[in-house]
């Protein structure tokens, strides 16, 4: 029987025609099946399966989980959250272009007549570059988390309350994230992101770096306009963590596998989870919550962020490039040993040497790839991610307004496991 390597985010194997049909149905629903193969969704033939089946994995990497016949219906976000997200994109692009609007005005007093120069308009190229990622219709995942957490921390149980300041936190988190993406693409020498050219591919490295600085500076101003020194400190911590995380990623230690794993988890916290955690904590502070609730919000964000990154690292091995928007196997090519690799190294000590030399010799990447797919690493990574998702979900009950919005936060947490990109 032929195996299909992946479908719907999990590693699967199909022993029966029923399973194959279910898989093709799901692919068709998600628009991933070409027209010519639509009939496969309703009746398959084995030779067609063989033709389209990607690289055949070994038996060990398959699980026998069947996917559902119908994909899970996604719970819709509350309307007020969706409204905030819609305006977010528009307002940020406007603000970065220098046109003032109600909320995002960055509030800096420019003394009259102090600048005796002809035009204060921000240069066109800078505007274009700064807006580039924001106008691409990204997932806005981080703002969504911040907004839902804000609603869940509200003490006004009947009202859908997200204050303007909490909305600003959502915006700031997305801006910080974007600035870090711009710099990461320069450091990693990436040409594509979300299936489009990167800022550095279009405009050069130096300009990309400066645009990243610009976005970060604007984010800082927006943060300051909230006028809460504690929140400014909390969010500034994210910026420091992002850089430290990037530094941690550059170094490989010659130490035990446990130490290496701890290093990976700490780096993951700094590079990814910190932003979620501190944004959640900030909105909790702004909601006037006590320290316990603040800590709960922080821990929710942290666990969510850890799960998010673990799944990202998993998808780098199992997803197809088109879905991801960037080349798969990118981490290995950058010399990074992520969770699947680290787990696999416990079974295959030969991987250690490859890890230490950051997969730099020819064929290292391919060898490491094969090791991972032949190991239990992917399953263990998913298991670890699940633990974090469940921990996040567990914490929701302690939030003040969880009765109204808790289910959305639970969805956010658990849906990590279903992600395809």
């Amino acid at each position: 029987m032929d195996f299909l390597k992946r479908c719907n985010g999990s590693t699967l194997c199909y022993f029966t025609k029923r399973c194959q049909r279910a898989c093709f149905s799901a692919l068709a629903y998600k628009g991933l099946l070409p027209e010519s193969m639509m009939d496969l969704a309703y009746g398959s033939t084995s030779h067609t399966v063989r033709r389209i089946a990607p690289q055949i994995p070994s038996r060990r990497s398959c699980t026998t989980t069947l996917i559902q016949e119908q994909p899970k219906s996604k719970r819709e976000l509350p309307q007020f959250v969706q409204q905030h997200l819609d305006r977010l994109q528009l307002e940020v692009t406007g603000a970065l272009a220098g046109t003032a609007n109600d909320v995002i005005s960055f509030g800096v007093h420019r003394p009259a007549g102090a600048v005796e120069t002809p035009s204060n308009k921000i240069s066109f190229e800078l505007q274009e570059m700064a807006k580039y990622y924001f106008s691409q219709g990204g997932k806005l995942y981080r703002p969504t988390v911040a907004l839902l957490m804000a609603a869940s921390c509200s003490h006004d149980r009947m009202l859908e309350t997200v204050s303007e300041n909490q909305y600003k936190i959502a915006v700031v988190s997305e801006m910080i994230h974007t600035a870090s993406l711009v710099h990461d693409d320069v450091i990693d020498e990436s040409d594509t992101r979300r299936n489009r050219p990167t800022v550095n591919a279009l405009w050069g490295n130096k300009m990309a770096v400066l645009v990243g600085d610009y976005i970060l500076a604007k984010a800082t101003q927006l943060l300051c306009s909230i006028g809460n020194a504690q929140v400014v400190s909390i969010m500034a911590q994210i910026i420091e963590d992002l850089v430290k995380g990037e530094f941690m990623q550059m170094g490989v230690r010659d130490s035990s596998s446990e130490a290496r794993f701890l290093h990976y988890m700490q780096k993951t916290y700094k590079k990814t989870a910190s932003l979620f955690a501190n944004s959640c904590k900030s909105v909790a502070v702004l909601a006037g919550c006590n320290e316990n609730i603040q800590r709960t919000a922080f821990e929710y964000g942290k666990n969510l962020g850890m799960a998010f990154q673990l799944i990202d690292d998993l998808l780098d091995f199992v997803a197809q490039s088109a879905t991801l928007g960037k080349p798969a196997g990118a981490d290995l090519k950058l010399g990074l040993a992520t969770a699947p690799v680290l787990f696999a190294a416990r079974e295959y000590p030969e991987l250690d040497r490859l890890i230490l030399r950051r997969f730099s010799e020819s064929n290292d990447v391919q060898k490491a790839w094969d090791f991972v797919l032949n190991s239990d690493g992917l399953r263990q990574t998913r298991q670890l991610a699940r633990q974090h998702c469940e921990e996040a979900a567990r914490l929701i009950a302690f939030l003040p307004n969880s009765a109204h919005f808790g289910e959305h936060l639970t969805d956010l947490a658990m849906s990590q496991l279903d992600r395809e990109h």
Partner: protein
Amino acid sequence: MLFSQIVRRSPQWKRAVAEAEKLVSYSGSYLSLQSSLSDEEANLALSVRKLLGTKHPLLQTAKDLFYNGNNSIQTRGLVVLLVSQAANDLKRSLSGSQPSTSAGTDCSEKILTKQRHLAEIVEIVYTANLLHRGVLDVAQMTSGNVEKLKLGNKLAVLGGDFLLANASVALANLCAPQVTSSVAQGIADMSEAEFLSLKHPDRALPQDLWDRTIYLQSGSLLAHSCKSAILLADLDDQSLLDNSFTIGRRVALIYALSEILTTNGSVNNKRETPEIDMSRQETFDWLENQGKLAIESINSSFPSSSGAVRSLKQIIRALSDRKCLV
């Protein structure tokens, strides 16, 4: 780079700077805010050595910073400290006590810790910007070891980010959102400066464009920092704030003009100061005028009995007085 320019500074300038440094107990180093470098960060600093033999801008910058000191960056920190001290003197004179005049008095009272941190933050931000402006584009990696140049880029970006992150945290710890916002505007403007010179990559800039470029590149941050120094002194009179802003802006302009003139109009390193499309005479006139205006601004707001005020005026004169230029 600026190393060669330091040598050409006049004796008046050196004297003025030395006296000012003594007055404000200037340690000349911003590394006190970065007291703990982790393993990775220390490794990174050492990694810069791998760039030896390449022409990556980062190598030159690192040499200038760590072996020669970077004169223009330190001057800006010094100016912020002087303005801080002047502001504190003003505050004291407004509340009836005497301003501090001699260098012998306990210097630590004359400048608040927060203001010292502000000066350090300003230096860190200028340094970060310098590092980031030294990132190479792929098209520029024509000669030499491309792998090493790519490493140089990574180090430049990360190094600059590291400094900016430190600055952000330090700014947040000032617990003065208005100050943080001001400095952030300075950072945003510095990023924008490079885009202006995109239009005229190799030619000298016309005066108005040059003026705006210099404002964005260095004037804005210095102006906002001087204003912030006043805010940290707990003074909030709007005309005082505006005036301090103007002083900072003028000093940066004066500094840039004097750089152009002391190197006879040919600047080796285009990263620092672009060339201006003006005759030498016109440039002198403009510089002298700015110097006079700057001193007027200082006199209109700050007590002349303040040692810091005198010191600041001395520095401005050393930069802008025709007789002092070599």
